[in-house]
């Protein structure tokens, strides 16, 4: 790590129009000085230069003494495009706006005009951002600052209490598809958490991942053989992590008897068989008798403004009418069909046959098309929620593949598992319930977007997790393309936000209003592997990078 020389790069400039304030200050610097937004600078401050005020660069402006573009046009001999007209270039300099991050003496009166501004050492930067002596540190990447010989690479650690509770919890990652590497960043963080809490601290954290894209997460316990030495060096030397894949991983594939290996997945059947052979992969099913009380989850995305579907579900869950002895999906369909065509015997109910017809369509669509709604669970197959409730322990990683399921069924799987985790936390009979369970869900917009019906049980589940999960130890790591599309209360309760590359339309939304314009523009230019992080323990937004993932990658999905 190269140490900065604390070189003086300019002086504070406080003018009538642009004064120094409690929040920010301006300084001038040479036009050849290479600085970037997010770089941190320091200024000696009151009393008697005994304290230091740190500022993070927000805007860099280049100005000359030309009052108008017309002046410059004339300076080029009225439009001559030749280079180097005259013996000198116009006098110019850069002026930089920096936001006050902190003062070492807690003095927040504005920095004074004419004070020297200098680059920081690594220690300065850690002090400025609150990265010094972080308790319960979890590596969340590294930041790069300055250019040339003064370049610095600094490990960024977050206090785990502010990432996975109890002080603050939940992470939201946003960014456009492909360019933002959202899943990669989430996995980097989760790997760091597993290394920290499952190796060093005895394994009090369990992980439940939902795989929604290709084979992304279906080999996270296998090493990335293409990981370059320089990336390995970043893991070991810069970040203090082992370049190892996830440990103690179990994969769960949805059952489908029409597909090779009887699993509905994008994974290579050979890989699935190999994982099965190693006792790492299982097929999951939802037997009716265990899930009939979760039928509401199938209606998560259905428009049910009159509440009739909810009435149907309640009727079934309460085992009213002919649903008293229903224990298989086929029987359920038959009985619903009876109500739909008016042939049901016994006591009359108040639900119209037309409502039952609609409900039947939903049930049929799920049960007929998705093989996971199956009542026969063999020994080598698993009932997902039972596994979660009874077997999920600290240090374990469950990867549940839902890639090829339809949207309603994906919601059903996610909702069932989330509900099972919630139930597990209240299970007083188990004595090995993990202290924390981190749920990783991609495409959060499917379950908690602004357009999700307010009655959606999955939305309610997510609101429960984000609003009350922190104290219970249920932590949500969620990912979506557009943060602005996510339900306010869900994203609002995420203590940590990671902003990857996005587009100009997205940053014009109100979610980004508090982010300085320059940073907003930077968000549209971030490269893959680059994030802007906001966390309560950090004093400022931080632009971080992370190395390639340590587990097996499938470039083509």
């Amino acid at each position, binding site marked *: 790590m190269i140490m900065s020389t604390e070189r003086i790069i300019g002086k504070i400039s406080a003018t009538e129009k642009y004064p120094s304030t409690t929040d920010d200050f301006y300084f001038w610097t040479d036009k050849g000085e290479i600085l970037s937004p997010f770089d941190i600078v320091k200024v000696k401050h009151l009393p008697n230069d005994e304290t230091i005020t740190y500022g993070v660069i927000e805007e860099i402006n280049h100005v000359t*003494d030309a009052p108008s573009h*017309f002046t410059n046009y004339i300076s080029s001999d*009225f439009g001559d495009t030749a280079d180097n*007209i005259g*013996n000198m270039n*116009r006098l110019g300099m850069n002026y930089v706006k920096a936001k006050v991050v902190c003062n070492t003496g807690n003095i927040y009166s504005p920095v004074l005009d004419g004070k020297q501004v200098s680059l920081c050492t690594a220690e300065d930067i850690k002090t400025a951002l609150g990265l010094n002596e972080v308790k319960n540190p979890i590596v969340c990447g590294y930041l790069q600052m300055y250019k040339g010989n003064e370049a610095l690479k600094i490990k960024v650690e977050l206090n785990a209490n502010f990432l996975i509770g109890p002080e603050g919890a939940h992470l939201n990652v946003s960014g456009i598809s492909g360019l933002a590497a959202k899943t990669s960043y989430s996995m980097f963080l989760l790997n760091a958490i597993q290394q920290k809490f499952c190796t060093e601290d005895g394994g009090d954290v369990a992980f439940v991942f939902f795989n929604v894209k290709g084979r992304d997460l279906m080999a996270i316990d296998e090493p990335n053989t293409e990981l370059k030495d320089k990336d390995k060096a970043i893991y070991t030397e810069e970040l203090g992590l082992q370049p190892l894949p996830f440990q103690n991983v179990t994969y769960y594939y949805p059952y489908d008897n029409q597909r090779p290996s009887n699993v509905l997945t994008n994974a290579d059947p050979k890989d699935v068989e190999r994982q099965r052979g190693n006792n790492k992969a299982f097929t999951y099913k939802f037997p009716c008798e265990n899930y009939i009380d979760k039928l509401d989850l199938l209606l998560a995305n259905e428009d049910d403004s009159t509440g009739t579907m909810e009435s149907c579900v309640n009727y079934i869950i309460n085992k009213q009418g002919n649903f008293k002895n229903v224990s298989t999906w086929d029987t359920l369909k038959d009985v619903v069909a009876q109500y739909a065509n008016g042939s049901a015997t016994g006591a009359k109910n108040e639900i119209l046959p037309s409502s039952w017809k609609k409900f039947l369509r939903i049930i049929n669509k799920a049960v007929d098309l998705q093989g996971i709604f199956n009542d026969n669970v063999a020994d080598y197959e698993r009932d997902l929620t039972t596994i979660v409730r009874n077997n999920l322990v600290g240090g374990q990683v469950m990867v549940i593949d839902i890639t090829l399921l339809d949207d309603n069924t994906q919601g059903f799987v996610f909702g069932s598992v989330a509900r099972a985790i919630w139930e597990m936390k209240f299970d007083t009979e188990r004595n090995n319930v993990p202290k924390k369970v981190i749920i990783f869900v991609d495409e959060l917009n499917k379950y908690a977007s602004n357009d999700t019906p307010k009655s959606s049980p999955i939305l309610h589940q997510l609101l429960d997790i984000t609003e009350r999960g922190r104290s219970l130890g249920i932590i949500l790591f969620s990912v979506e393309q557009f943060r602005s599309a996510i339900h306010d209360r869900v994203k609002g309760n995420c203590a940590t936000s990671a902003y990857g590359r996005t587009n100009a339309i997205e940053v014009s939304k109100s979610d980004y209003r508090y982010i300085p314009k320059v940073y907003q523009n930077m968000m549209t230019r971030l490269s893959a592997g680059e994030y802007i992080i906001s966390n309560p323990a950090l004093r400022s937004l931080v632009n971080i990078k992370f190395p390639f993932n340590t587990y097996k990658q499938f470039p083509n999905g």
Partner: protein
Amino acid sequence: MGTILEYINSHNESGFKCYSTKKTSLDDNNIDTISSENSDTDTVPIDTKGKFAEDDGRLINTVKIPNSLIINTPPYFRYFLDGSRHTYKVDDIAIGNKIFPIVAGQIVVGCCCRPNRDTFKKADLENDGGIRKKIVISLPKQFHTKGKPDDFARSYCEQINQHLAATNRFASSRGTRISKILFYKTDGPTVADVTDKNRYKNSAIAQIQNEMTDEEQLLVNDLCMANKLSSDSWLIKDGSLQYNPRFSNIDQAQWNNMRSNYKYVVGVSKSFDPDLLKNHEGKKLSQIIANLKPFERTKAYKYVSEHSNGMTFAVWYLRLRKSDFRETHFSDVIKCEMLLLDPSHPIKTSVIDAISANLIREAYPVCFGSDTRWANHLYPVYLTETFCKSHYIDSNIFLSLF
């Protein structure tokens, strides 16, 4: 009444009375190229027909600076010097049965260096750091009647400074002090027409102006003492080089010595009297100057200035720009001067052409929009002027000292 005037009012030889009149700035912006209010009018040409100050003796009126020379000439000028002063009438004082103005001035003389086309900085000089700043007070000579004026001025100035430091927080914290007390003449040939009601004020301002030109000469001297000027490191001095020793507060011997400092110095004036010189035929140059084509110059003429102890100068006029957009016929013409150390040896025409080509290049970029005289300005000179002006104390603060 402020600190200094309080002291003057209560500590003077004959109990002269200060009137506490309004404090006003005396500066106005003279923006016309054709000027009769500059040093040109104070100098007297000796010959009726112009004699060339360059070695090309062809009897022509103008010389076109070749485009190839403009493009290819290496930069000659590395140093740029400008003097600037602000004057203020701070009060009126009754002496006898007359009322005289008390005029105060801020003088800033600065020199900048341009080592390459992207760097422009204050000249690195040990004595004064490339900038000389002074605050002076110009009082009527009747204010002082006893002893040597210099001794009195020095001791009185010191007393004022002690009073200022003791009573003014700004002055004591910033080390602001009066550098010199000048005494202006209230009669004699240098004082304008007695019917001119501003004659005392102008005389007071002239004293401050002289002090400024002295500072300019001292700064040029510093450059030479530091060996900063050479054949590839010339100085452009803003304004005329025709200093008048009679108006100087420097002693004559030192003044004469300093004239040898001007071998690599070109004086450039933005405003001038176009009728000052005559061409080789004895006709006034004004018509030739007005008709100069873009990047054309007049021939360089010898000019013997009586006011400068009979020193000989080479003077020529140069049009800096293309003429399509100029406001007047003189608005992009500058007057160039060099001191002929040996009047019998004219300057090489190639040198004058190269200097002219360089001056044309120095005219870019322009300060259009920032200075109404942009067409006549040389950019580094404009920057030096801006640098000097940035060292002025704010007028309100300055006047509060009084």
